[in-house]
């Protein structure tokens, strides 16, 4: 098991490096002029040229890339001044440095440190909603298969998948925020309670969309499990139907659910761009998109690194969980 995790983590490092390098090249190759965006659309050319030099954008690609990698992880003293002013000390004298945002002129690690917890909060809440709604609907649909309840659950899940998040989001915002005045229209709030109240609508928006996948997955998996011989045997021996469904059939259906959670978690940390924009949720998604449109290279690279780490770690975690849940997959390794 440990060897398996170690192998996966090593592979993850390669994936992260490849993603970051690709992002760096794409950012460089696109026809753009970050200095012009920083200086402003009406700035005189001399000012734009000065900004280009100040940001180091006048250097060749290879030099910029080498400098980026060298600075990304290095050893240095724990000081917030001078050349280490934009660093994050991660312990043991090791620093992570993503430079300074072109637009905000603040260290990227500081900006990401502000945004990441909010994104994790939204991702966790969204996954909770997705799983709760999806698993519940999927199990009910499977138990009452080919009845009106099954039809309703499947149809609702189809509507959930087909409705873009901006439609669901605006509808929820209008109904709960504007019409009923029950929840905040948008924002993040000031206190923990306000954070939670503000979290409900974006989490529901993402949850309704994602729950549809869980519903269909769990329904199919549960129908398969419920037709297995062990189920009939257990029922024949007098095990209550509810116990059998929850403790036995559903437990065996967990493997694909965990895989899906692993994939979803990484994507959600990468940013639920549309939902964050609608609800003004200050996460990584809105930050990344704004940075990409503004060609704010350091923020783009920072977001890519965080997303790549989240996706690979959640995939590894899902793999490990699958191994724990299903002894057959351990045997295959």
């Amino acid at each position: 098991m440990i060897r398996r995790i170690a192998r996966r983590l090593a592979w993850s490092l390669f994936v992260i490096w490849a993603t970051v390098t690709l992002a760096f090249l794409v950012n460089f190759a696109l026809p753009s002029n970050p200095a012009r965006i920083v200086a402003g659309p009406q700035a005189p050319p001399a000012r734009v040229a000065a900004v280009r030099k100040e940001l180091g954008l006048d250097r060749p690609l290879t030099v910029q890339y080498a400098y980026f990698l060298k600075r990304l992880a290095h050893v240095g003293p724990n000081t917030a001044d001078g050349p280490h002013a934009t660093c994050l000390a991660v312990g043991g004298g090791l620093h992570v440095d993503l430079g300074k945002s072109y637009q905000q002129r603040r260290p990227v690690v500081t900006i990401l440190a502000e945004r990441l917890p909010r994104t994790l909060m939204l991702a966790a809440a969204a996954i909770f909603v997705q799983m709760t709604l999806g698993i519940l609907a999927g199990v009910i649909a499977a138990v009452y298969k080919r009845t009106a309840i099954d039809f309703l659950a499947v149809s609702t899940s189809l509507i959930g998948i087909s409705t873009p998040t901006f439609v669901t989001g605006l509808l929820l915002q209008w109904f709960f925020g504007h019409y009923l005045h029950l929840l905040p229209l948008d924002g993040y709030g000031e206190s923990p309670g306000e954070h939670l109240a503000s979290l409900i609508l974006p989490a529901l928006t993402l949850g309704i969309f994602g729950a549809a996948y869980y519903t269909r997955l769990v329904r199919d998996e549960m129908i398969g499990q419920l037709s297995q011989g062990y189920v009939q045997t257990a029922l024949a021996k007098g095990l209550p139907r509810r116990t059998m469904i929850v403790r036995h059939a559903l437990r065996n259906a967990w493997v694909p659910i965990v895989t899906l959670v692993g994939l979803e978690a990484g994507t959600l940390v990468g940013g639920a761009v549309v939902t964050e924009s609608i609800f003004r949720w200050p996460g990584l998604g809105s930050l990344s998109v704004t940075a990409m449109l503004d060609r704010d290279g350091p923020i783009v690279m920072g977001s890519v690194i965080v997303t790549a780490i989240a996706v690979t770690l959640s995939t590894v975690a899902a793999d490990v969980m699958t191994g724990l849940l299903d002894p057959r997959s351990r045997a295959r390794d």
Partner: protein
Amino acid sequence: MRSIRARRSVCALALGWLLAGCSQELSAPIPTAHPEDATPRRSGKFTFASFGDIRSLDPANVSDGLSVQLLENLFAGLLDYDEHGKITPDLAENWTISDDGTSFRFVLREGVRFHDGEEVTAQDVKRSVERALHPSAPNPYASAFASITGYEPYRAGKVDHLEGVTVSGQYVVTFHLDAPDASFLPLLAMHPLRPVCRSAKNRYEDTWHPCGAGPFKLPAGGWDRGREITLVRHPGYFRPGLPYLDEVHALFHVNFNAQRFKFVGGDLDILRDFLAPDLLKFQADPRWKPYGEYEIEKTVGGIAMNTEMPPFDNVEVRRAIASAIDRDKLRLIRAANLRAADRPVPPSIEGFDPNLRGQHYDYPAALDHMRRAGFAYDPVTKIGGYPHVIPYLVYGQSIDEYLAQVMQQMLAKIGIRIEIRVVNYASFLALRGRRGESPMGPGSWTEDYPEPSTFLEPIFTSQAINDSDSNNWAFYKNPRFDDLVSRAKREVDQGRRQKLYTEAQALLCDEAPWAFTHYYRLYTQWHPYLHDYRPHPLWATDLRKVWLDRAGGAPLARSFFHPKDALATLFDRSSQ
């Protein structure tokens, strides 16, 4: 029976919800609490929102319009603009200009305090000017002050002090220019050189906490980047009794729908970002109409044609395009915001000459220009015209993208075929300024200061041409035009200056490096309880004299038992 009733109730609720959702009628504006009493009340929080964000709150590093709205409330200047857009003294008690127009002497008010309690002196003015123009300052306006004596060596870092700014005693500061400059006072009344606290020191630093002498100050932690900002009243503001408001609260990245919901619900006091149908609804509603107003036009738009690339190296083709655009039809794309333009300088700028006949729609003349260019086109047989398709570069989801589609139809009628190429904003900015890259695309320019040269010098003079990043997107070169603008800027007599500017505009309209198509204007809507508020011609939100008298009290008090807040309170209690 109970079940049927319950079902009926549910149906009624659902129907009501659907009807409300479909009609989306505007609710009534929130009235003033004391309509009979016009005495200003000293309290309250003014809240506004924007789809965009601010980039900086340092006067030495600001170019976006949203930041400028907040800067006006944070930093007082020697001069300012009044509600009619006229230059007026602010920190300066008075000023005198030498006969030759090269020396400006300002006498400061005594006893004016910065937000940190220190007194504003002439030395602070000099220090702030030197800081804003120092090589370390990423000041997009710096070159606009190049007429100050000693600017070049100072900006190049060759000397420690700016020779052209001198101090006499504690309250007198003088600016010396190399030559008369008509744009100097209008620029000085803008934000870039406004005095900053001594904590800003002599050099620009990103980490400085904004501090000035304006009516509001930024408290510690008052700016949550990317989300919102809160300013509080400056108790030491030099105008007695002002401002009336306790706080100013600005929200960023708020989408248009949410802004409308918040505004109608009273969580915002003004609304400036509208979806086009919403704007028409507000304007058509007699309850709201008295509390809305257009801001002046500060942006000109048009078609920029690269005069170095075919077919636009032929002036007759450019004239044909300028004559082929029916501006009155084009503006209908967003009638509430666009006005037809016939020249570069909008009517709101002083010196607008109504006698100048600018560019206008004349279809027979457009066909005639095409014939003279050697690309005769027969609109009946559709034979002739320019033989190649011309790429038209535009960025996605902008109004220019929609305008381009209508212009495409209009130009097809004179035998010019354009292909609209949609790119993102960053690529658009990069490509349009490269020499030989883009033959044609939308041009747009917003005034930096209210003087005609702001629409002429940075985008049409040959000095604005640059191989890799030109602001003169048409790469238009005409020594006579350069000379007219240069002479106008140095001309002290206003009548003669306006005449020169008119002549320069006539030349542009004739040679058509741009086909000028529209001026853009914003609309602001506010609630009746907001008093003495009018969109300021320069700053949009000048809040010094604004006061609130809201029926039902402040939003917080109104919603004390509101489910939304009750929910937050519940969560807060449970998390403690």
